[in-house]
Each structure stands twice: as C-alpha cells, then as structure tokens.
C-alpha cells in the first residue's frame, strides 16, 4: 500500500534538511518540490533524508531529479542519505552523481556538504 509522503524541514542558516517520510510517488509533488521551493532563499546546502522512505517509484524519482536540476541551476549543493541499498543502486544507474552524492547517514552527509 502506498503511504502519504510527509516532509519535515529543518533549516539552519544556509543549510536545510528535507526529511521525507513515506513512499515517494507521483502524489508527492508538494512534499518534494513544494517543500524545496519554500526553502529560505539563503539556502545553499540541502540534505535529502530518505531514511524513512521505503519506496520511490519512477514518478517519485522524477520529482527528486527535478529537485536536483532546480538546485543545480540555483547553485545549491544537494546530498542524499538514508537510501536503501536498492535505491542507492537505482540512483547510481540514473547517473545522478553529477548532481548529488549518496551517503549512508546524516553524519556522513553533513561532512560531505561541508
């Protein structure tokens, strides 16, 4: 059963953490892009927390890619953490390394984003 996506946003200076919870699907536009667009204009570093996301379908991945493209255009650095091994492989196959990096946990992600 597909669950509703919830997003908790933690903002601290130029760093924002988008903590997703639930499946990310075509119904998650507000939870992914909506929350991204509502971030403080001063945000330069973004962490995407997928540790409570059991499943992303292709439409959900499309939303993440749109976020990455928009952040790239706005010269914001995005790193992801908490993805399951399956979706680490999917993100890798999608060739997203140019736009983001994938990390096991938040500590590693914070270190990567600097």
């Amino acid at each position: 059963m597909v669950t509703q996506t919830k997003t908790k946003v933690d903002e601290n200076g130029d760093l924002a953490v988008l903590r997703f919870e639930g499946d990310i699907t075509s119904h998650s536009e507000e939870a992914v892009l909506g929350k991204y667009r509502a971030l403080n204009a001063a945000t330069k570093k973004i962490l995407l927390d997928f540790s409570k996301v059991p499943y992303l379908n292709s439409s959900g991945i499309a939303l993440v890619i749109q976020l990455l493209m928009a952040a790239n255009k706005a010269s914001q650095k995005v790193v992801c953490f908490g993805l399951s091994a399956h979706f680490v492989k999917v993100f890798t196959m999608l060739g997203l390394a140019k736009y983001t990096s994938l990390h096991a946990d938040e500590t590693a992600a914070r270190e990567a984003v600097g």
Partner: protein
Amino acid sequence: MTRALLHLILLSPLLPAQPAERSLEADLSSGWRMIEGDNPAFAQAGGNTGTWKSVTLPVSDLPFGMYWLTRTIQIPAGSVDAPQALVLGTMPGEYEVYLNGLHLGSTPNFRMGNVVLPCMYSFPIPAGILRSSPTLYIAFRMDVAPRHASSEVVRTSALYRVTSLQAAKVAVAGEIDRRRVATFPRAATLLLDLVFAAALFFVWRNRGGWTAALWLGSAFVSFAASSAIFLALHWSTIYPTSTDLRWVASAEEGTFYLGEIAILGFTLAMINRVSRGWLILPVLFFPAICAIPYFPGRPIYILGDLSTLGVAGGLAVWRILAGRQTGAGIFALILAFCGSFLMSSTFHFTGPAVSIGPLVFRVDNWAQVLIGFLMMADVLRRSAADWGERQRLGSEMESARAVQSLLLNAQSSPGGSEWAIDARYVPAQEVGGDFYWSRVEPDGARLILIGDVSGKGLKAAMLVSLIHGALERETETSPAALLSNLNEVVCTHLRGGFVTACCARAEPGGCLRIANAGHVSPYAQGLEVEVAAGLPLGVVRGVEYSEVALPLQPGSAFTLLTDGVPEATNAQPELFGFDRTCGISQQSAQEIVSAAQAWGQSDDITVVKVRRAK
C-alpha cells in the same frame, strides 16, 4: 374417565337448557364531565362535578396536560348476570380507569412518556361491583402528551360502551382486523423501500462501487426496518394493559434515525471531497434519539433535528459560499430540509392521512417513498451514465492496448540477423510506459532498445508511441548517439518525468556495444554488465552517452529488462531486488516475467532476451 365423558356427550341434548345471561348495554359516548388538573380524589364518586365542562367522546384538540372525566350510569336491579366489560375507543391520551373508586386498569405506557398506542381497549368489570351498587361511577384519569405520531395512522373507532365481555372481545378483535387492513399501504411502502434498496445495492455491487448508492440503499433498509416495527405493533393481536412498550418505540425511532444518518452519508458521498467524519455528529445523537420515548418533550426532538439539519445544511451553505459545487450544495440543502421534515412529521406531529376505502395512506410516508424514489432514480441515472462512460473508456483503453501490443510484437520478428529476440511485455494497467524496439541494420547488426517512461497508463503510453515514431525515423546506428538524439526528442515533448533507456548494438561476429540512459543494467551470462551511468532521457538537453563493448559467444544471450522485475513487491512488502533478478537472468523471458509476477507485479514488466545464433 373416558366412559364418563361419553355419557356426558350422549346425554347432553337431554339436559335442561341454561337460561340466557342478562347483560348491561349502555352507550358511554355522552354525558361526561371533564376538568383539567390532577386530583386522585376524583376517582371516588360524590364530588361536585357540576362546575366541570360537559363533553362528548371523542374529545379532541386538548392542550397537553392531565384531565379527569367522569360520568355515572344506573344499573337496573338484578338485571345483570353476564360478565361485563368497558369498551373504550379513541381517546386523546393515555388513561387509567376507575369504577366506583376501584382502579380497573390503564392503557399501555400510561404516564410512561409520549408513547401512545391509540387502540380500542376493553376492561373487564369485576362482578362484585355490579352487584354492590345500583350506580356505576366511571372516572378516567387522562394524560394528554406529545404523541408518537406514527401510532395514529389508523383512527380508532369512536365506540364507547358497557357491554358483555364476549361482545367487548368481538369489538376489539374487529378493531384490530380493521387496523391491519388499514396499514396495508404502510406495508407497501416497506416493500418499495426494500425494492429500492435492492436496486441500489445492485448498483453499488456491480457498477463500480458507487458509495452514494450504498448509503441510499442503507437508508431504505433503515426506513423499511422502522416500518416493520410499526407494523409489528399494529398487527399484534392485543396490547396488554400497563405494559412498557417504550423500547419498541425506541427501536422504531432509532431505525428511522439511522436512515436519516444514511441519507446524510449519501449527501456527503454526492458532494465529493467532503470528509465522512462529519457523520460523527449525528451518530453521537443516536442514543438521544433512541431515548426520546423515555424522556418526553420537544427539546430533545429539536436536538435530533439539528444533528442532521445542522450538519447537512451547514455543509451545503459552506459549499455554496465557497463557490464550489453550488448545485450539489443546493441539493444537500434540499435533502437536509426533506430529512428534517420527515423526522419532524414522524416524531412530532400526526402526519396528514388520506383514507381510500379501508386503506389509510399517510402523506409523509408516501412523500418519503416519492423523495426516495427520485433520489434513487437520480443515482441510477448517474451510475448508468458513469458505467457507460467507463465501458467506453475501457473499450478505448483496450484498443490502445491492442495497438501498443502490435507495435511491440512487430519488433520480435527474428529475420535478417544472427541475433534473435525473445521479448515479453506485461503492462500493469491496460497500457503501459515500458517499450522495446529493434531494427536490423544493412550489415546484419541488430539495434535493440528497451525503455521505461516514468509513470503508467495512457499518458505514458502516448509518450511511448511518440518515441516509437522517433526511433523509426532515426538513422543513427551507434547506441550512444542514438540515445543522445532520442534525448533531444524527449526533452522537446516531455513536461516532467523522464525516460530510462538502454540501447545495444549486437554486431555480426558477436560484439555487443551498449549505452545506458539511467536504465537497469543488462545481464549477460548470469552477471550484471558494467555500463557507464547516464542521465535518463528528458532531464536535460545535450547529454552525451558512452558505450561499453562486450563479446558474446555463439549460442549465448544477454537480457534487457525494466525495473518492473527488480521492483516487483510482495505482500510483506519486500522488493524482488537486483540480486534475485541477476539470479534468474539466464532464464527465458517468459520465466523471468513469471517469477516477477509471482513475487508481485507493481509496475510494467518488460524482458527482452537477445540470443546469438550458434
């Protein structure tokens, strides 16, 4: 013993005839004195009733309150030896009867609330009373209270007599028979309610789960149950006096109120995007409605009304003021008032009735049937239109599926190359966003492309058709260049989403050149082929893809598939995953599809097996 009985039977014609019993016959319809108020002393003869109001039975239009009615009749000396009884027809309230100060009995539920079951009652007169006094002082202590109006559908006969017990029994039995016939129309409304409910449940069950039909059908069942309780009361042989029947009235009102809640649920179902949570308010009132017979008085009726009228009416006004679905809002408002009217007419007032011969038709019952019929007709009309539209869309989707199937199956033809294709495509819906394409080059090489449009259904299928058209026009023979060109096409037409694709060129001599645009890597000889990751098609323009080369021996094969295989999900839910996919990658295309389906198909599944001839 048997012999004695036989003697008695044989000799009985020879026994002397018994003299006929003498009975007192007196009409009690006139000569009554009535006073408003309550004084137990009025049960005894000897009071001054000269100032009391002179009335004739039946008395009507009395304000709510307690009343006493008295009159006296003379008993001829030695003239009565048959068992006698009082026969009393319609009265404006529940009452108890006193004869010469002796309490004779009372109607059901006297002083127990507002439940009134007007009927003809007979009260046997103790023989001692008739012998002990030449006069009979009759007193009624009467409570005129708000009535449970449904009980008044059949007007009780205006018959008031002192007569023989046998004649009284005959009169009451005749009255009950008349009541049964008179309530046949109510039985007809019960049957109509059940027919309507059956039609609506059929629509709900067989026409795509119309919840509005389920709610309305439930309302009809509730109304039918209420009618059944009513009829059970009115068709019963006789009511024992002083019996607490409030629980029956409570059940009748409760079931009718459940119908009101169902009508509200129907209203909410007709107004899309309104939470069913609104129903909690009238549900909370349910115990209060069932308690009405136990706590007489108008305020509790009004509370009951407010629960349905307030919720449905408030919702309707809100929808109208919000400027959304004005028509539905007005519809809900009308329903709210209709529901309120029906409740009011049932609980508060005696509904107007029309008599045709022995049959009595109560207007509010038939108004409920008429309004219900119109609502049902509207639901049936809408569901029929919706069903027709679904059938039409289903037919068009079937056509689209057939066209897509033709497009894809055309690629499976093996001729002209040493590379043969075995492909399977199973969309999750009628049509899907997976696709594959193949072309044999003039040099005998075979170009194979597998792809997956993000999303499912018709929108994805339309993009697949567009990509197919672009591929048919494509002249590029290099997998990487072909993907770059296709990316430009997709970027031009795609608004959101992406397309993953993997393209392979299987050349004569066994060399395999592969480029990947974000797609699941191919498998060869039971291993995942290491390919350079590339962005999916449609994300950004100007992407260049790189190729890897892989030799394949004669007779060996490689497998291209979409994420419908590794992302098949079972009930736990657990993904099929890449490891299991790799493990079955050397099986045939059909076997791989079957394995994914057995695990739990959640997306389109496509498997293309490309085998080099031996």
